[in-house]
């Protein structure tokens, strides 16, 4: 992130100097932060709304119920090394919280899951197949409702802010399945060697 940020700032400023657009650069640097604050204020209502809905779901125990329902299919999907199955309940809790968009509950569970799996492998500093599969499922996004994008579309005056829900679900399903398939292929190859 640090490298990316420095590269953006340096490249932008040097390009401006080279093309004689330093006045534009100056204006951008001073107004960019203001744009961010405007955006945040405009998103605030939607964030409060979605946060509130998730709050109700959480206190109804929806995440726990979903986690229980996910346990069995997940235990089939993951090929655990000995001892790693101890992380199954954290894995299902992490994924169910992520599906419902509760990042605050998902991250601690996910980190515990990774630590448990690392311990089962003797903390050897090497990512196991199950650890990688869990990571890839997480990075391919499993959130059911793209709340930030709905909020952003509403703020920009889209005719129908929620009409991206179906393509988002389809695209994220494709990426998750693809990620899991790659992991399985690598895991199978690793065992053959």
């Amino acid at each position, binding site marked *: 992130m640090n490298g990316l940020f420095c590269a953006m700032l340096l490249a932008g400023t040097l390009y401006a100097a080279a093309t004689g657009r330093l006045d534009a650069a100056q204006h951008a640097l001073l107004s960019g932060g203001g*744009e961010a604050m405007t955006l945040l204020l405009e998103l605030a209502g939607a964030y409060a709304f979605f946060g509130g809905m998730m709050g109700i779901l959480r206190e*109804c125990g929806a995440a726990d119920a979903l986690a229980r329902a996910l346990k069995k299919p997940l235990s089939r999907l993951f090929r655990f090394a000995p001892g790693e199955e101890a992380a199954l309940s954290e894995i299902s809790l992490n994924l169910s919280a992520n599906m419902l968009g509760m990042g605050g509950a998902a991250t601690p569970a996910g980190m515990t899951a990774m630590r448990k799996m690392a311990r089962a492998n003797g903390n050897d*500093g090497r990512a196991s197949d199950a650890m990688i599969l869990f990571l890839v499922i997480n990075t*391919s*996004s499993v959130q059911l409702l793209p709340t930030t994008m709905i909020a*952003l579309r509403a703020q*920009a005056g889209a005719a129908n802010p929620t009409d991206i829900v179906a393509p*988002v679900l389809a695209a994220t399903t494709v990426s998750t399945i693809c990620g899991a398939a790659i992991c399985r292929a690598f895991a199978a190859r690793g065992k053959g060697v």
Partner: protein
Amino acid sequence: MRRGDMQGVCGEGERRVKALLPAMVVGCVLMGIRAKVSVYDALIRGAKEGLTTLVQMAPCLCAVMMAVALLRETGLMDAMSALLEPVFSRIGIPREAAPLVLLRPLSGSAALAAVRQVMEQTGADSRASRLCCVICGASETVFFTGSLYLGAAGVKKSRYAVFAALTAYAAGVLAAAMMV
């Protein structure tokens, strides 16, 4: 022609889509009543969490939007998009969406800034804007999540993790470009 078909499908489903959030409200409230939780208090606690997330995002978003504004105003972003156009247009990604596709795995704030930029440039309902929203909604900040989880487990050898995660992201981008 394919896009025309998709728009027809969207038109039919429009009423159902518009009912999505109201239906969610009814569902959540009924579930709350059934589980005997105080809906109002639960909603307040959740809203507080949502707003806290937003406040925590503020400094990052300011910094990144400053950098993105710099790239935009100086014309560097246009130059980069034009450079990438031959590759991206082949897989159905319009040039306006190119910066988002590259920034998304690196930084959530930068991706948000990029989507907003496309929306301002081309309108909220343009194909480029919709595609950006779908790509953004269907993916995660791969490098952030990766370093967080691998760091937590003390992993030094991540093996094929980055390759698998980025390939999955590319598959999602391709799927989005085909559907939107």
